[in-house]
């Protein structure tokens, strides 16, 4: 099971955190500090896995962003590496060649997409299309809501004119 997902920039800035196992706010800060110390200092040719407190952290670097997932000891590390990649591909498809800035300014979207991919610490959907379809369905609903809202405000504006 995946215990948490972290996105950390090369400078150690947190871009996204998702906790599937209970961690208090204090623990979270500690975990992030410990792990960024551990992962950001690792050389480029080493394993993408780190042993940490009896668990494994699988990380992968995309440009200046580190995607980290913490898993149990007996999970398949290579698979997790591919789940990370899967997530990045979905993000890429959604944002259209995703970059760190997309995630900085639209972190809530990154969360929504992650929620369609992982649930309760497990991979819930491995079909990229399915994820994309769901996310866009939610977005279109948002769009229609926005249109409605603007049309209402138009009506009000006109009425009050």
């Amino acid at each position, binding site marked *: 099971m995946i215990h948490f997902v972290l996105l950390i920039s090369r400078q150690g*800035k*947190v871009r*996204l*955190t*998702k*906790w*599937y196992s*209970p*961690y*208090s*706010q204090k623990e*979270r*800060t500690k975990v992030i500090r410990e792990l960024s110390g551990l992962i950001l200092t690792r*050389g480029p040719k*080493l*394993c*993408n*896995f*780190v*042993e*940490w*407190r*009896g668990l494994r952290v699988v990380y992968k670097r995309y440009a200046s962003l580190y995607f980290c997932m913490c898993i149990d000891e007996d999970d*398949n*590390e*290579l*698979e997790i*590496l*591919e*789940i990370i990649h*899967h997530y990045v591909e979905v993000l890429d498809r959604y944002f259209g060649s995703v970059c760190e*800035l*997309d995630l*900085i*300014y*639209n*972190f*809530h*979207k990154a*969360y*929504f997409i992650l*929620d369609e991919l992982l*649930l*309760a610490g*497990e*991979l*819930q*959907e*491995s*079909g*990229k*299309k*399915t994820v994309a379809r*769901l996310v866009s*369905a*939610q977005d279109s*609903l*948002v*769009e229609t*809501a926005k249109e409605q809202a603007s049309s209402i405000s138009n009506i009000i504006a006109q009425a009050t004119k």
Partner: protein
Amino acid sequence: MEQLKTIGRELAMGSQGGFYQSKEFLDLVKSIGEARSKAEEDRIVLGEIETLKRRVSEPDIPKRKMKEYILRLVYVEMLGHDASFGYIHAVKMTHDDSLLVKRTGYLAVTLFLNEDHDLIILIVNTIQKDLKSDNYLVVCAALNAVCKLINEETIPAVLPQVVDLLAHPKEAVRKKAIMALHRFYQKSPSSVSHLVSNFRKRLCDNDPGVMGATLCPLFELVSTDVNSYKDLVISFVSILKQVAERRLPKAYDYHQMPAPFIQIKLLKILALLGSGDKQASENMYTVVGDIFRKCDSSSNIGNAVLYECICCVSSIYPNPKLLESAADAISRFLKSDSHNLKYMGIDALGRLIKISPEIAEQHQLAVIDCLEDPDDTLKRKTFELLYKMTKSTNVEVIVDRMIDYMISINDNHYKTEIASRCVELAEQFAPSNQWFILIMNKVFEHAGDLVNIKVAHNLMRLIAEGFGEDDDSADSQLRSSAVDSYLHILGEPKIPSVFLQLICWVLGEYGTADGKYSASYITGKLSDVAEAYSNDETVKAYAVTALMKIYAFEIAAGRKVDMLPECQSLMEQFLASHSTDLQQRAYELQAVIGLDAHAVESIMPSDASCEDIEVDKALSFLNGYIQDSIEKGAQPYIPESERSGMLNISNFRNQDHHGASSHGLKFEAYELPKQTVQSRIPPATLASTEFVPVPEPMSVRESYPTTIVPSASSDAESTELKLRLDGVQKKWGRQTHSPATSTSSSTSKKTVNGIKQVDGSNTSNSSTWETYDSRKHVEINSEKQKLAASLFGGSSKTEKKPATGHKISKPSSHMVEKSHVRKSSMEIASEKKALVHQPPDLLDFGEPTVQSSDPPSVDPFKELEGLLEPTTQLGSTAAAATNSPDIMGLFTETPGGTHNKDDSDILSSLSKQPVTNMVGGATSTQVAQSSKGPNRKDSLEKDSLVRQMGVTPSSPNPNLFKDLLG
């Protein structure tokens, strides 16, 4: 240019995105992005928190604005700051009608709240409503929240609706419902155990996504109970076959692999189902073989599936062909340049050597390369592999390597792990005692504070008992080499506390045994230790006891004892110590030194830590005393069965105790039992008032200076033994060597499989590998070769574990009883001793008594709890018997069984606090009271008073009295 791009993106973001984001928010994100230091970032965030605090509490905030504030809160919290003031607003947002707002609310609460947060109760209602919504997106949002927020208590509130959603027309909803049920199962298996059939049904869902999701809970179910799911083997195999044959929609392909994530999950389940089941495994051979062949080993995902196949093959009933493919795949992993693959290869090798140990040999050089790799992760994985393949032939090399690595790292978590592995291996395979002690010294020196205290106790016992059963000279040699090495180590500046305790114990016990070192030398060293580590009470206690032993041995040998001046000053210091334990020990030391050689020898026989102590459970040594009392007119003891008519009062007491035990400590005052008791007192209790108080001269006769009386001296002996063994024997109550049995069973499996292996695959296998080996051999340097030889040298023979492992583990189980018995005898003795020199009306004399039964440190006390139970019973029996026969009448009013249990409960809960003394104090109060005042009412009042103080007097077990008085 770069900046322009950024601005462009920001602009695009502001308009697109669908979310309204104000300039403020963008500025915040930007300024944090530009912050040069953590301090600057914190300052900005704190400012933002202030703003948000103000803003969210304003009235009538438009929804959109609110949504943005909530997102800003999420952002702030993501950066590690506390945004709890806004949680309630996020909760409110989930109540909103518009999905747009609701979704943000749900996102925020799932990020903010853990499942045990108080606010969750406010969300449950909304979730219930949303689960019924006809908009599937609302349902999805609610299900996401369910997975994160619903805890054990709230499962029943949403369970029926979630189950209904399993039949929802939208596959996304079904999938999430499955995942939610999986979460429920993890939280509380019993709540969804009746729904297992639903999971089975969903396995046949039309949508591959739902089917894939169903594998998660099924994996969990299968891993807890394999046998109930054997019927699914065929289904899983056929699904896997279809997946591998690309029958699933193209959308599930990932890097040209057909639904690899589903394949991996299926292989995991099959590995569980086929473990040790030949019939089930046979169904899987074909499909797993197919996957081996089809896997594309050039892509990462292909390797992930391959690795899972290896895991599966090494778990199911072995098949030579599959094992061969697995070995092939492993060698490809190990030969790869990628560290990730090497890591997986090492891991897979560790799994496969359980079945075919000979494959390790082919890869020995690759393994050694990994061991010397600068990458810590790879190194640790390799140590794990080495740990799995340790035998008596290579144990020295492996443990040495492990210790070197242990010394080099700072990560305490891993240090602890590797230290305990070293200890385990050394205990199992140690080629010689000297080596074993050497290794233990190293482990203690470098990781002493991290290893389990049991390890130290094990080592003490090993030194005391020796390895060889009949070879005494080897044992004494072992001891003197231990003493030598410890005296040497004491020169080091900083030694972990556990190690010091061990050293003190060994020096005390065996420091002067071989005559190499003089008593004054050893005592000097010991007092140095006590002085140098003056803030460690446990070490000081060990040191004092060790000093006492040395002096006792000296006296017993007929030599004159001259206490070193530093020892004397130390003793003076301890006699006035705040720690009653240290005080007690110091007083005991003083007392022992004042005795003559004969007495000392029986108190403190040399090298007797392993002797059994006989316990006279019937307390027959008291017979004379009882006879005396009866002759002087005391009433004989009447067993409870003969005392009818007391049931009333005992029932009453019983209730009383139940009240006390169920809550541990009761804070409100107990009601005074006086009146009720009085009205109910049956004639039989009146009889007890006629009991004659203990004649005073009795206890005077047995007071302190007369300790030389044989019985008393044996008491002292056992007290001393208690001191010596405290935290030692009882720690061994539990077996520390459970791994030994498991490993040995796996060895036997190995042999079986080894035989199976030989006929088919092995020949071809090794011939291919010989070429690889010989080619490699030329290139590598001799050092590596040597290492390889020492690691893998005898690996072709599967060998039996040497007997040492068992030797260590066997006596420990036997120890359990021994220490148990011993312990209780000690308790009796100590209680008794106190009573012996206790004038009947000095109430607080009980204190030192109980102290003496206090183990030196708090930690072992927990272990004691179990032991305390019989102890106290015995102890109080003794107390009652010696001091005043009439108290028995009082005590036995309470019913035996339940009462005793209550007592020990209270005892154990009390024991963690300084109040401990009270137990003993109270008991003796009672004893004294009742012996003094024959007034029944008076004693009952006192009794209730004691109860009000939260202490229950320990009561005798009626059965014991039966033994005692026939």
